[in-house]
Every structure is written in structure tokens, then in C-alpha cells.
């Protein structure tokens, strides 16, 4: 049961399972540490064929543990939550700022995120200060946001590099419009399946991928500990639908874009 063979049969008509994957959306929060210990987590990532992974965790310690164990594999990003209960309150909580400052002074990160921020909340003092910190430390912003919040973040920092989580759960047409408007905007496709059915890419999404082949990445979104056991399946699923795209486009979305964007962190 649940064999890799079964997964491959379902997901993988005609593509190599060795294609690297850059997973741009993983979490390793406090409840995962015991249930999926660091050695097992690293093993899961390697077995899934992940070249690298952008990982955050509420409380921040999770990805630091992973990074210490596998610096070649893990790219840490700093989430502005001490626990996930703060997901809907952090942007009004001034204590978040000293927390971020402390962590930024202690550890290296590639991004601040993933954070949840919508509409006019992006202009509140705490998110504004967070953007200033990202600017100071030259970090990506990984925003689980609507397009309105993304626009406000760019208004605060026009040179920002924003990774738009889940492509905003927005339509391909609106995502394309955002990408045309903002050259420094990239998207992860985590927790979405609407761009592909039966391993065939949706025509509207295909047009966006072809227009912006260097602006997308895949991601699993391990928001519960159990979903660490989905990383391998997600990687297989990603390879399957990407196989419907021209190879170079598929490679970029699968891993090359992530590598190119975060190479500066890897070089540190």
C-alpha cells in the first residue's frame, strides 16, 4: 500500500523521477519536530529528490535545526510568527519587530515569510517595519496575500523581491497581469491543482507559464506534521504535470528558478 510504484503509476507517465525539485514552500513548526525528527525530515527531502527547499516555521527554530543538519539542502526563511496562532494578529503586534530583529541578528535567512497579510493591513506599522528590515538585510518577502497587499508592499519598497505564495490563489489572467506589472514578483504554486488536470496543463495557465517561465516555483506547503510525508508525493506530482511543458520551461519551474533566485544565499 501507498507504494512509490503506485504513486508513480498514477502521476508519472513518461518523466524521469530524477528531475530535481526546488520546493519553495515548506514549514517545519514546533509540532513537527517530535513527530518528524530532523534526521527523518532530511531523509524525506532527499528521498523526494529535492535539490533545495525554502523552509520556514512558526517559532523559527525548526528550520534552524534543519539548516544545521543539511545546509546544502535547506534555505531558511524567517516567519514573523512565534506560533501559528499569531497568523491573524501578527501585523498588529509590535512585539513582532524586536523578535524579527533578534532573529535576523543571530541567523542568516533568504527571506521573511511566509506571512499572511491582506489588503490595507499591509500598510500597518508592523508590516512596514518588517519591509524595512527585509530591505536592510536584502531579503525576499514571501507573502501569502491578495494582489492588493502585494501592490502595497511594492509601493513601500519598489525594489522588493516578492515571492507570492500560492500565486495568491488568483486566476491565471490576474496572476499574469501582476507579473507584467512587477518584474520582481515570483510565484509559488503550493496547494493548488487548478493549473493541471490528469497531468495536462490548463491552457490559460500554460500561456502564463510560457510567458513567464522564470517566475514560478513549486511548493508542498507542509502546514501539518503529517504533510511532511506528502513531500515525496508532491514532488512526483509536480514532475508529472511539468512534463506537459517544454523541457526547459519545466526545468525552470521545477528547480532552476529557485536555484537562480536563492543562489546568493547559497553562496554565503
Amino acid at each position: 500500500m501507498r507504494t512509490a510504484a503506485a504513486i508513480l503509476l498514477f502521476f508519472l507517465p513518461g518523466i524521469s523521477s530524477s528531475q530535481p525539485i526546488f520546493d519553495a514552500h515548506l514549514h517545519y513548526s514546533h509540532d513537527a519536530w517530535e513527530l518528524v525528527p530532523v534526521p527523518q525530515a532530511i531523509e524525506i527531502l532527499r528521498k523526494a529528490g529535492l535539490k533545495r527547499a525554502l523552509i520556514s516555521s512558526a517559532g523559527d527554530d525548526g528550520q534552524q535545526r534543519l539548516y544545521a543538519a543539511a545546509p546544502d539542502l535547506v534555505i531558511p526563511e524567517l516567519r514573523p510568527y512565534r506560533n501559528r496562532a499569531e497568523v491573524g494578529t501578527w501585523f498588529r503586534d509590535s512585539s513582532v519587530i524586536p523578535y524579527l530583529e533578534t532573529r535576523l541578528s543571530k541567523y542568516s535567512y533568504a527571506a521573511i515569510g511566509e506571512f499572511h497579510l491582506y489588503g490595507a493591513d499591509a500598510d500597518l506599522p508592523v508590516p512596514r517595519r518588517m519591509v524595512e528590515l527585509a530591505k536592510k538585510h536584502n531579503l525576499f518577502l514571501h507573502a501569502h496575500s491578495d494582489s492588493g497587499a502585494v501592490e502595497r508592499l511594492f509601493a513601500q519598497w519598489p525594489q522588493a523581491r516578492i515571492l507570492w505564495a500560492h500565486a495568491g490563489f488568483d486566476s491565471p489572467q490576474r496572476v499574469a497581469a501582476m507579473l507584467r506589472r512587477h518584474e520582481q514578483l515570483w510565484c509559488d504554486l503550493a496547494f493548488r491543482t487548478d493549473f493541471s488536470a490528469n497531468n495536462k496543463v490548463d491552457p490559460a495557465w500554460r500561456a502564463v507559464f510560457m510567458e513567464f517561465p522564470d517566475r514560478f516555483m513549486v511548493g508542498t506547503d507542509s502546514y501539518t506534521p503529517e504533510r511532511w510525508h506528502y513531500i515525496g508525493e508532491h514532488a512526483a506530482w509536480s514532475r508529472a504535470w511539468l512534463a506537459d511543458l517544454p523541457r526547459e520551461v519545466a526545468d525552470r519551474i521545477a528547480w532552476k528558478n529557485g536555484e537562480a533566485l536563492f543562489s546568493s544565499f547559497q553562496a554565503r
Partner: protein
Amino acid sequence: MEKRRSALLLFSSALIAAATAAPACTPAIDGVRLESKSFVLSYRAAPEVGKHFSVEIAACAKSGPPPQNLKIDAHMPEHRHGMNYRPTVKPLAPGRWQAEGLMFHMPGKWELVFFVEGERMTRELIVFSDEERQRILAHGPWPPAARKDPGNRVSGKPEAIALGERLFFEPRLSGTGSVLCATCHVPFRHFQDARPRGFGLEQVDRNTPTVMNVGLYRWYGWDGGNDSLWAQSIRPLLDPREMRASPAHIASVIRTLYRKEYEKTFSRAPSANDEQVMVDAGKALAAFQETLVTKRTPFDDFRDALERNEPIAGYPLAAQRGLRLFVGKGNCGVCHFGPQFTNGEFSDTGIPFFAGKGRVDAGRSEGIRKVKASPYNLLGRFNDDATRANATSTRHVELQHRNFGEFRVPGLRNVALTAPYMHNGSIASLREVVQHYSDINEERLHLDGEKILRKLNLTPAEIDDLVAFLESLSETSARK
């Protein structure tokens, strides 16, 4: 809130029997009974909110002549206001009155107040809005009309039902000759086993669901890994942890022990093809299980009276309050929909799904893969519906990321009789289930997942009421 245009109905329920001695007199009408120090009162009313209604009232004195003076009023304790209209009381006969001109202009909790010779008697009433009423009515009628499975050519056939019943209790079908379907689906336990996790020949990862009402499902198993009852009936036979049989073994049992019954059922001798005979055994088992339908419940009586605009006695107020939470604040009816109290689909309700150290039960995502790959699915050659119209769900079901860790939304009929709960039997009591939804761990739910799954923050009284309602979905022994 604009409620006026909603046709709202008030339904009163019988007074719970007083712990004191039986009343010393009997009012002249049969209705909801109230009692004070000196009097016994009975009333009947079936008002619609936003419309004037009347109340028929009778009262008698525990000793002495019938009372002569009666007043009636109503108010909403939580809103601290009463009606906008003053009712009139018309005497009809000694100890009998008709009250006119009452109107409940809002849904919610009302209190009807009677004064008989100055002695006060009250009755709490739950008034449902038109929207609530429609949601309640959608949970019936019950039982549903019998239906045949078009994918099973012996569905509903008496010979098949008889054969299926014998096979259900046949240990020789198992590879070891020691377990039977009824080992886990125990009749006197409402066709489940009361264990957290099933145990045939070995313990499995999941709770044994009841097979009552199983003929009405779209998908089978906690993961929906089968799309027909007959295919699902084969699954535990072949599972080495459950009955550890093989197609050849099952076919041999049929050929040697049930040849005559098989021939009566299928109008032919058992085939030489083991797989075909095994599938036929599954279809006979399914024919039997289709007959397992839960009885009517106190809720059904209440629901039907609501539909007929009739007053009802006997449905506890706590259950009515719980019902209002179920279709309202709790949004429970969104997933636990319709007469079976299930939408027949799957959901992640924040229950951890590790199945052991370093191992998860992937639930629906595994189920979709299994049903798509199964040689016994409705797209395959064993489906007796030549049109394949019954295979629409199988043809169109799509695997999505959210399916990982989703499990069946179970029906709620007889729910009070089928503990423990959840796919892994991890919750022991109904109260704890309600508490789980009240305190649901939102950290386990994706922010862009099911929006209704948010903390309900129920009060202890509300939890009591929801449990009372859920208990009213279970049959009582006296019912047919």
C-alpha cells in the same frame, strides 16, 4: 436582521415528566402540559413567525372547580422584549380558552407565559426561521425509499439477500476460517465493533464503521477506496489483516458450500473463473447489507411534524436548541447534509492522521488512487450497469492536495450508538467530538481550506444541547 418575510414556525414540546406525583386532574385537550401548585394546563399551538396565531388552552384545578381566569403572554428572554401585539383570551367552556392575536416576530428562543388564577406557568419554545426550517426539513424524510443498485444485478433480489446474509456470518469465507464479516460488523453493536480500530486477524489503522444505511453511499470506506458496496464487500475478504482470503478460496467456498443458493441467486452455476465468483459473492453480500437501514428516530418525528405544520410533543427542548446550533452557528449541516446526515464526501477536520511511528494514513488521496486503479471499480467489467451512468463520480473524481489526510464525512444516524468516533477511533464520546469542533485546532487547517471549520467556542450548555440533538438521531429500542 430582516426576518419578517421568513415564515417561522414555533414548535413546542412536551413537558418533561415531573418528578412529583401524577397531576390530580386532566385538562380537556391533549397538548403540551404544564403544572403549577394548583393547576394543570395543556395547550396546542403551531404558529408561524410573522403571522398571527392562536393557542388552544385547557386547564383544570387539582382540587375544586375549573379555573375561570387565564392570561397569556410571550417574550424573548435573551432579547429582553416580548411580543408587539397583545393577545385576547376568549373563554370557550369552563376550563377552556382560545387565545388570539399572538405573533412571534423573530426567530429564536421564546417563552410562553400563562397565568391561571394568578399562578404563573412558562414554557420555553424554539422558533425556527424559514431558513432553519428548510435546513431541518432537508434531513428527511426517513426512511428513504428502497432503491436497487444498478451496478449489481441481484440487488434487491430475495435470494441474493438470503445468500448475502449467510455469507455475512460465514467464517469459512476467511482464509483462516476464523473470522467473519460480523466479527467487526457486530449486529448487536449496530454493525460496528465499538473498538477504536478494527481487529479482524490483526489490528488495522482505522475504526470499523457501521454498515447500517451503507446502501445509500456514493463512496465506501473511510478513504472512499471503493465506489460500490459490492466492491467494498470484497475488500476485507482479501485484506491479509482482516479476513486473509484469496479469490480462489472464496470461489471454492461458494462452489462447495453455497452452490444451490448461488444458482438460485444468479440463475446459473458458479463460473470456473474465481474472480467472477468472488465478485458475485460480493454482490450477494451487498444485497444483504442494502437491507440494513436504521429505524426512525425522535428527530424524524419532529422533522415530519415541522413539515406538516403540526405541533409536536415529545421532542426535548435541549435537542431543539442543539438542532438550531447544528443548522445554524455550528454549520454542521453543511457536511452532515440530507437524510443520512452526510454529503457522502471527505474532509480534513483537524484530526491527526499519523497511523504509527513515521507512518501516516493518507486517507482520501490514497482512496482516490485505489478506486481509480481497482479492477472492481464501476468503470470495469464487473459493473452490471451497461450504461455506466453509475460511474460518473469515478470517472470525474480528481486528486487534489487537500485530499491528503481527508476522511469520510460519516452519516450521523445512530451516532450515539456507534462510539468511538473519527477515522481512527481516537475520540471516545459524542461530547468529546462536539468539544473537538468547539475547540478545533486551527493550526492544523489550511488558511485557504474549508472556511466553516473554525472554532465554535461553544458554551458548556451549548455542548449539552448539541449532544442532546445528536442523541435524538439514534433509534430507540421501541421504534420500528
